[in-house]
């Protein structure tokens, strides 16, 4: 009985912790990108104010849209992104580690994007329809390099002959960098560069934000969302940032200094900050948006090319 209660408390901690962390890092991200463009930027707690304000505002259901799809998928996107965190080993074993593995996580990452697309299509405005189509194209794009990157550590663990190679715990315990030849190290370096672009793509940050392109289709996917539904998507995107960063920490950057729990958590936060800074803040301010037709070519052409080369190096 006791461990059920413990698990329940752990679950509560993870839920509210991930939302808090996500919004916190979103605030840092906005401040840093503002500083990089020589403007002051919003206060640190701006995302929390946004969420509170959204919760108070009216949540409008557009006239032609289907009410239950419109609202259900706002909730589903947040729950799916939080559920991912249950399967990722953050500081040791993951909470549900023994009942799910890497393929499950790749599929769980589709849920938030999918519910965004369904919400956009169901809100019956041509801007959100366009945004939804572009988001699907974006999802089709980044899935290919994502699959290659996630499967290289599995291949390395498989080559070393460990058992149940697909579970994230085994990958997390055996540091991926130690398993390969020097050529493999170069390959993994190449792959970690691709990692940052994939994270930027999955969070649809600037070079890949064809779906919420403010200048072209006025808010795109979330054009018709307001009030608490928009708050759900806002938080889902923040949690997804944390989940993605911690997934790639578990796969590619698992080093950690042995200290008590506090220090290890601090190092973990620093690593997340490092990844989010490069993948979303740096790339966002440096590059500009892709044309739609060039996007697939970039994903399936250059990004997956580098990923495959990296993978071949590790063979």
């Amino acid at each position, binding site marked *: 009985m006791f461990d059920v209660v413990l698990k329940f408390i752990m679950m509560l901690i993870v839920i509210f912790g991930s939302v808090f962390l996500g919004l916190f890092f979103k605030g840092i991200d906005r401040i840093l990108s503002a500083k990089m463009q020589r403007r002051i930027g919003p206060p640190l707690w701006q995302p929390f104010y946004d969420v509170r304000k959204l919760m108070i505002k009216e949540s409008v259901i557009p006239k032609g849209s289907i009410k239950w799809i419109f609202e259900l998928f706002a909730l589903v996107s947040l729950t799916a992104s939080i559920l991912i965190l249950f399967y990722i080993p953050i500081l040791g074993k993951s909470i*549900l580690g023994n009942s799910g593995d890497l393929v499950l996580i790749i599929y769980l990452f589709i849920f938030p994007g999918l519910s965004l697309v369904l919400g956009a299509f169901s809100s019956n405005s041509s801007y959100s*329809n366009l945004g939804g189509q572009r988001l699907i194209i974006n999802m089709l794009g980044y899935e290919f390099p994502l699959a290659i990157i996630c499967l290289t550590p599995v291949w390395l663990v498989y080559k070393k002959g460990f058992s149940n190679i697909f579970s994230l715990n085994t990958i997390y315990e055996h540091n991926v960098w130690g398993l390969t030849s020097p050529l493999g190290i170069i390959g993994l370096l190449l792959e970690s560069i691709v990692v940052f672009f994939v994270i930027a793509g999955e969070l649809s940050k600037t070079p890949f934000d064809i779906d919420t392109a403010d200048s072209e289709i006025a808010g795109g996917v979330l054009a018709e969302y307001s009030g608490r539904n928009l708050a759900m998507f806002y938080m889902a995107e923040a949690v997804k940032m944390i989940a993605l960063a911690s997934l790639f920490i578990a796969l590619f950057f698992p080093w950690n200094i042995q200290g008590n729990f506090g220090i290890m958590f601090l190092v973990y936060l620093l690593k997340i900050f490092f990844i989010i800074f490069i993948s979303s803040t740096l790339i966002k301010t440096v590059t500009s948006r892709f044309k739609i037709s060039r996007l697939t070519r970039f994903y399936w052409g250059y990004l997956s090319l580098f990923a495959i080369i990296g993978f071949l190096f590790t063979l």
Partner: protein
Amino acid sequence: MQIIWQPKIALIFFLLIFFIIYFFYLSGEKKYKKDTFQTMAYFSGKTPSQNIKLQNIYWGFFEDFKKLYMFLAKIQKENSNDYIFLFILGSIIFLLALSL
């Protein structure tokens, strides 16, 4: 410990999280002014017809594979001569591959 995909645990946790968030979701504002101008979809320019054509929805995706689609459309015309030709071609390829 062998990883076996247990869907029940995933579903239970999914529902638990869903209820906790739904509990938080209820604290948000529910009312909105029905059938007012507020619920009309946002259009900046001339308001087009309510439904836009979703047929060629993956325009961006096609652009890069235009040549491939042209080729595929060309070889697949719907008459039995082409069907039988493709069938014989396929079985010859199969035989050659098998006899390597």
